[in-house]
């Protein structure tokens, strides 16, 4: 009578299978919504990844991040593919943040956001350096130029650029996820909140 919906072979539950693709689509759609409607300079392109990580744990979070970048590569720009590893780690950290109970208070979520931002910057730096020569083609490249001019190596400048911009974006992302999850209806929390990996 209480047969589990989770497959016995350690695969993803049907709930995870249903949520992850939607979260990936949200990553793509939300970044656009916030920028085009509210004209705010925040990306929020990992909000779905963080949401899945916090709700379903590290494995589901990592898969969401990884596949989100694969989808990004499949639909818009194959140059997003090399950063899939970074996105996977963002989801992984969100999953661990859940396990440490970060969801219970806003400041823990903010802290998780800062940590995620720094780690993301640290992992993207070598990829940015060896594949893209340290730049991304966006406005933040000015920071890279500045740090290099101050004497940093390409790798160092790339990391410092990320360390300046990523933690802020990730902290906002985590706080939004916190606000949404803490206002979820009971029924949905019972389905998504209780599913441990």
């Amino acid at each position: 009578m209480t047969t589990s919906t989770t497959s016995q072979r350690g695969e993803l539950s049907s709930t995870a299978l249903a949520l992850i693709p939607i979260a990936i689509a949200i990553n793509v759609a939300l970044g656009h919504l916030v920028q085009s409607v509210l004209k705010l300079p925040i990306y929020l392109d990992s909000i779905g990844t963080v949401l899945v990580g916090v709700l379903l744990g590290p494995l589901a979070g990592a898969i969401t991040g990884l596949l989100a970048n694969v989808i990004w590569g499949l639909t818009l720009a194959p140059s997003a593919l090399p950063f899939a590893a970074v996105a996977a780690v963002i989801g992984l950290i969100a999953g661990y943040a859940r396990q440490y109970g970060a969801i219970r208070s806003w400041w823990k979520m903010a802290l998780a956001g800062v940590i995620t931002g720094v780690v993301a910057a640290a992992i993207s730096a070598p990829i940015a350096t060896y594949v893209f020569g340290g730049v991304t083609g966006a406005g933040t490249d000015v920071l890279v130029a500045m740090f290099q001019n101050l004497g940093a190596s390409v790798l160092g400048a790339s990391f410092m650029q990320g360390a300046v911009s990523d933690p802020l974006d990730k902290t906002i992302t985590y706080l939004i996820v916190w606000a949404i999850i803490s206002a979820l209806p009971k029924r949905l929390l019972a389905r998504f909140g209780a599913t441990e990996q």
Partner: protein
Amino acid sequence: MQRTGLFIERAGFLQRLNPLTKVTGALLLIGATFLLPAPLTGAALLGGVLLPLALASRVARRFFDVLLKTLLPVLISLALVQGLFFPTSDPTTIAVGPFLFRRAGLQFALDTGSRLLVVAGAPLILFQTTHPGTLVQALIQSGMPRSIGYILLVALQLIPAISERAVGVAEAQRARGLETEGNVLQRIRGVLPLVSPLIIGALVDAEERAMAIEARAFNAPGPKTWVRDIPDPPAERIARITMLAALGSMVVWRVMMFFFG
């Protein structure tokens, strides 16, 4: 009608190949750009391999269109940032107008840029000539978990629908007096009313979709079948083994160079 990612429905050389052959080829090209000397390899692969393939597959225009559109900002930034600010002990500079470019920086930009064109170009031509459904089916049949394939295909098809829903949320909340055109503070207050309905709605959808997954017996035990067949002639299998062998020997050559060269 409905665009599915980068795929262009056209009959040509690459379109006839098994997706696995194309994936192997893309891996070989990417491997080669990192293992063989730049910028010559990049230029040779782009002009000598990707261009003929794009022409033979009748996607050449769209191929270069997308490649340049996504990479041009990066390439320009690369030339400017690294050309002007590359950390180097080499004092040689090249004057262009009022700017003094560093020779080593330009060399670095050229190396990276040529490599980048192939690293992005190889998967691009793969995606432009392979229907995502076929690609995923081929990958699952050769061992990728079905759940990963499922997630990829669903996400791909959901993006337009979720984007449409995002527009609907913005309309509904603006109709309730949410100011989205005011000052920064007002607009920041708008983030939650815009983001929350989308995410809660997504969770509700996910619950219904989870039911659909169960109803279609996705988790049923036992072997699976496929309604469509993906041809895989022996010649392509041989080609894949050859390409993997080439990639392997390049790696070995590079390791030998590192220790003995």
